[in-house]
């Protein structure tokens, strides 16, 4: 594996942020996706949805500003943007499942070339794992972006022919943003759209478990 610098988690988030259309309703999952709110391009307005029943979530609360009845889905105290609203969790997931979110961004353990996503459970890990809102969000978002490192800590590809980790949803991923590339999942295969500075398509292909078009 080439020992060259890769994008940081923050850079991945910034890269994913550029995928968001103006005016979009967006849900951000655990991990890298949760950093996206801090890297929105200037002039872009998006509305953040949280599956615990908030639309129009603002920035994280500053020290002293925390209200523990106003938390995001990661349990982090947040603020409200103007025009926010609250609703119950069934309505929050009516939004996720029903195709009302323009974009959802989730973390991932594996994505297959068909766009299958595995992101909720590591095989062999202690305990039963936890699904949370990921399956509803993956099944329902108009556009699903997955942000993750391109390879595991051991260097194994996380973009694979077939997922070996427990699945979150089948054929749900539209775009994968990693520390090496931006890849679109199309009917005909994985399309390498952007490459991290200093890397070549050939190097990225070697770290990817499925063919890149």
């Amino acid at each position, binding site marked *: 594996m080439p020992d060259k610098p890769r994008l940081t988690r923050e850079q991945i988030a910034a890269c994913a942020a550029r995928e968001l259309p*103006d*005016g979009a*309703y967006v849900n951000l999952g655990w991990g890298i996706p949760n950093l996206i709110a801090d890297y929105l391009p200037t002039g872009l*307005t998006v*509305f953040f*949805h949280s599956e615990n029943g908030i*639309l*129009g979530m603002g920035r994280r609360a500053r020290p002293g500003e925390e209200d523990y009845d106003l938390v995001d889905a990661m349990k982090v105290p947040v603020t*409200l943007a*103007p*025009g*926010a*609203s*609250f*609703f119950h969790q069934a*309505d929050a*997931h*009516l*939004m996720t*499942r*029903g*195709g*009302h*979110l323009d974009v959802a961004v989730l973390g991932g353990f594996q994505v297959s070339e068909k766009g299958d996503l595995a992101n909720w459970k590591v095989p062999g890990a202690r305990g039963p794992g936890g699904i949370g809102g990921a399956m509803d969000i993956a*099944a*329902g978002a108009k556009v699903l972006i997955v942000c993750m490192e391109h390879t595991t800590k051991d260097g194994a590809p996380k973009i694979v022919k077939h997922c070996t980790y427990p699945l979150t949803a089948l054929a749900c991923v539209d775009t994968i943003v990693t520390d090496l590339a931006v890849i679109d999942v199309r009917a005909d295969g994985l399309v390498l759209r952007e490459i991290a500075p200093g890397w070549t398509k050939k190097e990225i292909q070697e770290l990817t478990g499925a063919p890149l078009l």
Partner: protein
Amino acid sequence: MKQKIFPNVDAAVADVLDGARIMFGGFGGAGFPNNLIQALARKGTKKITAISNNCGTRDGELGLLFKNGQISHVIASFPGPHANYFQERFATKEVTLELVPQGILCERMRAAAAGLLGFYTTVGVGTEVATGKEERVIDSQRCILESPIQADYAFIKAERADELGNLTYRLAARNFNPIMAMAAKITIVEAEEIVPVGAIEPENVVTPAIFVHRIVQAKGIRYAG
């Protein structure tokens, strides 16, 4: 960012083409989007599938569209005693009707809104409503499978809309409006009043802005009877 506010009701319905499936809010004279309905009458869209609790009050509410021959199919729970233009066109077979129990009508729209593909209910078992539907027994109860009702548009009447599209409704004029607003691909709202962003308390929003695509200010019209 694209604005949701339209200058007038005619602009708000300008792209509603022949054959459109449209949900219309309102019940018992309250909460009908009468200004949008009149705009649709002016536009002259034909072969509409209308989804609505009832079928108009003489030439008021949906009556105008039946009078004009713009609706070819309607999904409703209770056409109503004063839906004479519907009744005429139903008698001459110019209009077909799917009659649905009122709560099941709500629930089928909600299923569409919530991305569900169908549900089982005891409502309608053993009645005309069950005709042609899958029946099975779950937990010793006979039940039938009901399918989602989708629509291209929902025409909604709100009391207040903020500039982002958050809505509140007045009293019992709420009725079908919040359900339909969630269920349609494009939700068009006539609001008595458009208020600045932030004017509606976040805890008091009834329809969150995510469900609203077009907003137009229009004063309510009411039909007697």
